[in-house]
């Protein structure tokens, strides 16, 4: 198991938020995220996952308005006291729809990746260097001169990740990044994420693909109706089968199967598997005993 750093990057303190048109979207959120940690966010529709993500770079409340209680600090910056533009080098967000997050103003992949940096007034030399690095990281090398609109969904989402990586943010936030992608696109995006995790990036990922979260995350935040239901290491949260079901979330299949078998066969497992390899190991042992 990964040993988490003690360096605090994100801190939510008694944070509550209401949109101008919808009240209590997030209620009394308290949590800390540490450098290099990968935090997954799960919850049914309307749980506040996207709002949580948008509160990290100040879109909530600067862009949407609404009322806020408490505060959010990212890399030492209070999001209420800094603009979204100022926070853009600290927090990079990747949204659900790959196409709609393209600037629409860049003609080529490399221009798109450098767009944010040029809006922040970085030097051309630095932009060139960062663009090259980001494109290589997401595996889009060779497509630099291609129009962003000619890319597949998976490639566009990797491009969106590159645009964020180029800004070298301290935290990367992904709001259901594969929800609209086909299986190949999902695979491509998750492969990039795994690489970033290996490099020690701090990542927040809101996701419906709960099975994938088991492989990616260190901890999982389970939200429902704007409140924290659970915040613990991934195994513990994903093993709360009845809580997940109650909220309308499908637990990982192997975890659910183990839970059902435990009930059916009356065997007590020390812990539920959340990854395929763990399930294989566990069932092999059970079958050997039998």
């Amino acid at each position, binding site marked *: 198991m990964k040993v988490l750093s003690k360096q605090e990057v994100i801190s939510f303190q008694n944070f509550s938020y209401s949109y101008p048109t919808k009240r209590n979207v997030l209620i009394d959120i308290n949590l800390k995220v540490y450098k290099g940690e990968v935090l997954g966010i799960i919850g049914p529709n309307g749980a506040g996952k996207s709002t949580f993500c*948008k509160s990290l*770079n100040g*879109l909530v409340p600067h*862009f949407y308005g609404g009322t806020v209680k408490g505060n959010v600090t990212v890399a030492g910056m209070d999001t209420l006291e800094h*603009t*979204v*533009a*100022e926070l*853009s*080098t600290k927090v*990079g*967000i990747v*949204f659900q*729809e790959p*196409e*709609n*997050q*393209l*600037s*629409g*103003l*860049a*003609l080529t992949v490399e*221009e798109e990746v*450098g*767009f*944010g*940096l*040029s*809006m*922040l*007034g*970085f*030097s*051309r030399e630095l*932009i060139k260097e960062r663009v090259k690095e980001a494109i290589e990281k997401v595996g889009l090398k060779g497509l630099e001169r291609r*129009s962003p*609109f*000619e890319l597949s969904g998976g490639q566009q989402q990797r491009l969106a990740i590159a*645009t964020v990586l180029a*800004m070298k943010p301290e935290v990367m936030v992904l709001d259901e990044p594969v929800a609209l992608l086909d299986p190949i696109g999902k695979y491509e995006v998750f492969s990039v994420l795994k690489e970033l995790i290996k490099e020690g990036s701090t990542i927040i990922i809101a996701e419906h693909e709960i099975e994938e979260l088991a492989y990616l995350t260190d901890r999982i935040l389970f939200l429902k109706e704007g409140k924290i239901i659970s915040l613990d290491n991934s195994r513990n949260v994903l093993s709360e089968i009845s809580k997940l079901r109650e909220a309308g979330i499908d637990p990982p299949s192997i975890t659910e199967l183990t839970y059902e078998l435990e009930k059916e066969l009356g065997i007590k497992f020390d812990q539920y598997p959340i990854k395929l390899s763990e399930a294989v190991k566990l069932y092999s042992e059970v079958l050997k005993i039998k």
Partner: protein
Amino acid sequence: MSSIGTSLLRRSVIIKETLIHKADPRTKFFFFLWISIWAYIFYDYVLTAIFLIGIIILAIIGKILKRILLSVAVTVLPWMAFGVPILSVLFPWNSTLMYKIEIFGWQIPFYYEGFAWGLTWPLRIGVCITSALLFYLTTNPANLIALLFKLKLPFRFIYAFAAAVQLIPLLVDEAGTIYQAQLSRGLRTDVGIIKRIWNFLILIIPLTLSSLTKVQIRAIALESRGFSAPVIKTCPYDIRFKSIDYAFFIGIIMATLIMIYIYIVYGFSPIVHLKQYLISG
């Protein structure tokens, strides 16, 4: 994204290494304003056609001839095809008879004033559209945005401009998607022209709502990437006047002097000698 939407955005700017592409966006924008104003000052279809030919020559140099000709074919020619025959007969200020045509035993008179008006106005519109396209199609939008910031234009204006650039392909794309959705729910297409127009009208509400949502998402994406940061933006390419721009401006000054001379000596209709009508401007 549907093919039309994709192509609109993807091909909105044609990347080439030509003199027109190398020219500063300010030069091209000034040319658009300059030639459009002259096209309206003179009421002379031959002179306006010469302006249009001039733009087409620049389009050849800029290797965007196809797109320019297409826009001429879509904007100028249909208006001429409708306007010239109708106005030649029905223009209120018609007085100079050119010829008569016999149709079903009726003698239909064709007049010069309506004929000239029907030719001049589409040509004027053509000059405006093609010169604007010459600017738009050969200027990188990211460069343009950086230039607008450099010119210290109000932030809201720049944001509106950026949204407008994004909105056109979004609208086209959304219209396609919604229309297909309506078709799959039984919208009939084998109907008359009125019903077809109605079919398009019922797209407006879902189209507007969905496009607004998408524009908002794009605005969020732009904002998240520092669009509003109060710093001097970095232009992806060099934005400064080069020798081509100075040469262009010298040409514009010379042409302006010649046209002022023509206007003073020969009037607003130096070649075809039209009378000025109130309605013609």
